[in-house]
């Protein structure tokens, strides 16, 4: 029997080995998310069903629907989210289409600006809009200068200003969601449409647009879900008439410490988000979020009646745009087979560049403001000085906040990598029972409105004494960063040829050696970008920080928020500018890594 004893691997691996092999990589992430997402959120929701003394009660919900105030807030939230979504999709579409169709270098340059505004803090961008829209702001002053209006006009504190601010915040997300779908559309299809006799309008509406629809739907749903949970924009750009549901949750927690009612509001928000997300999953499948659209459009047994009506509408739109185009051609004499046609490319570029300017400029306007010599955030800046940067350096509160943010971000990013990377390997490569469910759990920090997570964690931390601690903040931020890490690493693994691993095994490398010498070096770029994504997520995070930090334990975004609520001196502009530079550097690094990987 010596032969049998010495020949390892002659028998099947034991059940235990199979089990740990399958679940070992996933265990940390599952434990982490169950403990820090499902348990606290479940606890918070259960609180909403407790009356005084801990007995079951629907008191919170009775209160919710008793007064028209709360119903009104919900209606406003839905309305603002709807208009934001509509505006965002319309604005994002041309840019996404341009990015999807352009050749390498130009595409990457456009992509960089979109990514930059994607990662640029909502706070900074909202401050930018305040400078643009207020009574003494950029637009008011410019209009007065041009003598279009007589006196200062106030564009802030209205539904339109909130919608503009939110649209501005959402466009990058929408573009990044649409691009992969559009990149999957074969350019030859539009060309084929034209050789078959279709004019550009018909070809766009009958061929390109229906094929891009999954991207449009996905973008719209994500924007809508995110919009429902917004509080920064309505807080700074809206009046009390534009109060949104998350602002109510903050109020209930921070001012009244009414957990039950905050829980009820959270449940409402969560249900709305989950309903929308279920629609998303039905339409596209959750895995499209990780870029692995194995299904694409659900290819059913042909279009249903909704599809047929859709196609008819598209046909009509195509006909109308064809007539429009040929009318324009006739007016400008751009017809005939004898001379070169002018293409619409110039106009398309103008639109794309205008949208990019809309994305970038509001954040950049904080830069000149930060150098003002005056003591208020105003336009135009009064003189030039570095006093507010000096002020930043002299202020222990700001310095500590910045230091704290850096430490927390490094800690959270490291933790998220340690937990998220093995999970990405497992999900990308192993056959797992309940894969969709696992993916849903791993992505849940993106799906569950952040405010709900933040309130739930606050309650949980309060019980176990983690409020105000580094550990609490690091762990909380790591939870939020995990989906980004998993998505990024899975994307890299998707393009990784596993035959390299097989070759290594064949050459005698053990799994750990293969990982160390072959796999990890090859996916290094992806891992670094995942780390940077996590870093930026934490560095920019306000929602959790809003509750679990305070006083001497604030982070930079929390300090900015407090400052903006209380005094709003140009020191805020100086801090925004520095943050902007930091985000730009990180985005540039990520961008470099990604473009290098393409080659």
């Amino acid at each position, binding site marked *: 029997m010596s032969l049998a004893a010495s020949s390892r691997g002659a028998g099947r691996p034991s059940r235990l080995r199979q089990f740990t092999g399958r679940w070992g990589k996933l265990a940390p992430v599952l434990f982490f998310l169950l403990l820090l997402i499902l348990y606290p959120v479940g606890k918070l929701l259960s609180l909403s069903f407790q009356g005084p003394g801990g007995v079951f009660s629907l008191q919170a919900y009775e209160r919710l629907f008793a007064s028209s105030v709360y119903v009104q807030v919900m209606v406003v939230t839905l309305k603002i989210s709807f208009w934001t979504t509509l505006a965002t999709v319309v604005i994002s579409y041309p840019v996404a289409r341009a990015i999807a169709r352009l050749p390498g270098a130009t595409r990457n340059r456009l992509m960089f600006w979109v990514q930059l505004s994607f990662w640029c803090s909502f706070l900074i961008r909202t401050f930018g809009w305040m400078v643009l829209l207020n009574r003494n702001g950029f637009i008011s002053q410019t209009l007065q200068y041009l003598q279009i209006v007589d006196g200062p006009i106030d564009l802030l504190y209205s539904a339109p200003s909130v919608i503009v601010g939110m649209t501005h915040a959402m466009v990058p997300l929408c573009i990044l969601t649409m691009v992969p779908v559009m990149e999957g559309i*074969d350019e*030859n*299809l539009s*060309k*084929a*449409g*034209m*050789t*078959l*006799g*279709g*004019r550009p309008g*018909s070809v766009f509406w*009958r*061929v390109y647009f*229906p*094929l891009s629809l999954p991207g449009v739907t996905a973008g719209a749903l994500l924007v809508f879900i995110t919009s429902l949970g917004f509080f920064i924009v309505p807080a700074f750009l809206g009046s009390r008439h534009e109060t949104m549901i998350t602002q109510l949750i903050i109020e209930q927690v921070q001012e009244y410490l009414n957990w039950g009612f905050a829980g009820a509001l959270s449940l409402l928000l969560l249900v709305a988000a989950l309903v929308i997300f279920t629609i998303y999953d039905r339409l596209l499948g959750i895995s499209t979020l990780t870029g692995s659209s194995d299904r694409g*459009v659900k*290819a059913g047994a*042909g*279009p249903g009646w909704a599809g047929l009506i859709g196609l008819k509408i598209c*046909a009509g739109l195509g006909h109308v745009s064809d007539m429009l185009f040929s009318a324009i051609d006739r007016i400008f004499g751009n017809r*005939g*087979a*004898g*001379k*070169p*046609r002018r293409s619409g490319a110039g106009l398309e570029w103008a639109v794309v560049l205008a949208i990019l300017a809309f994305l970038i400029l509001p954040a950049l306007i904080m830069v000149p403001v930060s150098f003002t010599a005056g003591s208020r955030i105003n336009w135009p800046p009064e003189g030039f000085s570095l006093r507010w940067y000096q002020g930043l350096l002299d202020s222990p509160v700001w310095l500590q906040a910045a230091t704290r943010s850096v430490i927390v971000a490094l800690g959270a990013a490291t933790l998220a990598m340690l937990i998220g990377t093995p999970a990405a390997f497992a999900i990308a490569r192993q056959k797992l029972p309940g894969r969709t469910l696992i993916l849903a759990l791993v992505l849940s920090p993106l799906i569950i409105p952040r405010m709900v997570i933040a309130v739930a964690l606050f309650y949980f931390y309060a019980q176990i004494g983690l409020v105000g601690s580094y550990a609490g903040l690091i762990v909380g931020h790591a939870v939020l960063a995990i989906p980004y890490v998993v998505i990024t690493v899975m994307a890299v693994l998707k393009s990784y040829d596993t035959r390299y691993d097989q070759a290594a095994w064949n050459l005698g490398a053990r799994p750990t050696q293969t990982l160390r010498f072959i796999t990890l070096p090859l996916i290094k770029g992806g891992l670094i970008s995942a780390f940077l994504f996590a870093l930026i997520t934490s560095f920019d995070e306000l929602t959790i920080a809003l509750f679990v930090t305070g006083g001497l334990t604030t982070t930079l975004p929390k300090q900015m928020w407090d400052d903006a609520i209380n005094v709003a001196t140009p020191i805020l502009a100086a801090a925004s500018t520095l943050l902007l530079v930091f985000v730009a550097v990180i985005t540039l690094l990520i961008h470099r890594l990604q473009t290098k990987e393409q080659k």
Partner: protein
Amino acid sequence: MTDLTLQQNAGTPPKLVVSGLHKTYGATVALHPTDLTLRSGEFMTLLGPSGSGKTTLLMMVAGLLQADGGELSIDGHKATYAPPWERGIGMVFQNYALFPHLTVFENIAFPLRMRRMPEAEIRREVARVLEIVQLPHTAQRQPRALSGGQQQRIALARCFVFKPSFILMDEPLGALDKKLRDQLQLEIKHLHKSLGITILYVTHDQEEALTMSDRICLMNGGRIEQLGTPAELYFEPATVFAADFLGESNFLEGKVRSNSPDGLVIDAVGGAISGAGNFAAGSAVKVMVRPESVRAALKPVEGWNAVPGTVRETIFVGGVTRHYIELADGGTVVALELTDRRTQPADPGREVFATWPVSATVVLAAEKGKMP
């Protein structure tokens, strides 16, 4: 559409006339000023390696790429800058470009809908062409549910359903495996004959071009290298490139010794070679001969060209046997002969003559810096 055959083309105007058409991208010339005429009913192939300008030319004919200058006319009408949807010419794309969100029926109906044809007529026409490509049962399927060969046929049907003036095909068989490709080559050729369609076909596969074409337009470096029937290109290549690109060829370097009414005498490795052509004495030439014309013989054949050499290898390739004969200058001549059971493989190292008929000798101008 009635049957048109090549014989009755004399009276019909050409389908396509290209004159001086050119295109430049920055510093690279994609297509030098080019002239080309596509006759009614013919099957013409643009053949060439990638970057030879064949796709550029095709795209400009389709109207998907704007020319820098020159002219092209379709059915006698000037169409240099006409938009693609007004050209009325069909195009089959390399990956078929069937619309994935539309059924087979709707795909084929698309060009008819664009032409605002009444619904009843659309149904009739789609059914008719589906019959022709023998796929009537696939009408309500999604394109991706079809096999590669079926998709190819649907793409063809979508193309000729609107009775285009002629059809462009951009490497339509490139994505298929060899067996299916051979079968579809014959099918396309059959459709071409029975429907009388004029076809301008693009490929980089010389065998495909030889199989299918009435005429081949061989392209290289953004220019037309040679235009002619498959036999002309094969037996009378005009350049070293043409000789090398189509079929297999042996080349010998040489210098013209004399040019008389009886023909050329060329000094090459191992002796004089006779041939024909218009070259001045002293000019450098290349002598080309196809392997199937060459014999490996123990002594020169009377009246044939012959060069001495050593057999290096003999390989049995089924129906044919290949002899590799090394010449004194280190070059190799391949001789191809039909295999016979009785043929004894020549011993490696054996001194032989590579010998071939004078009529099979092609003399070409030696191109500088372009060794095939």
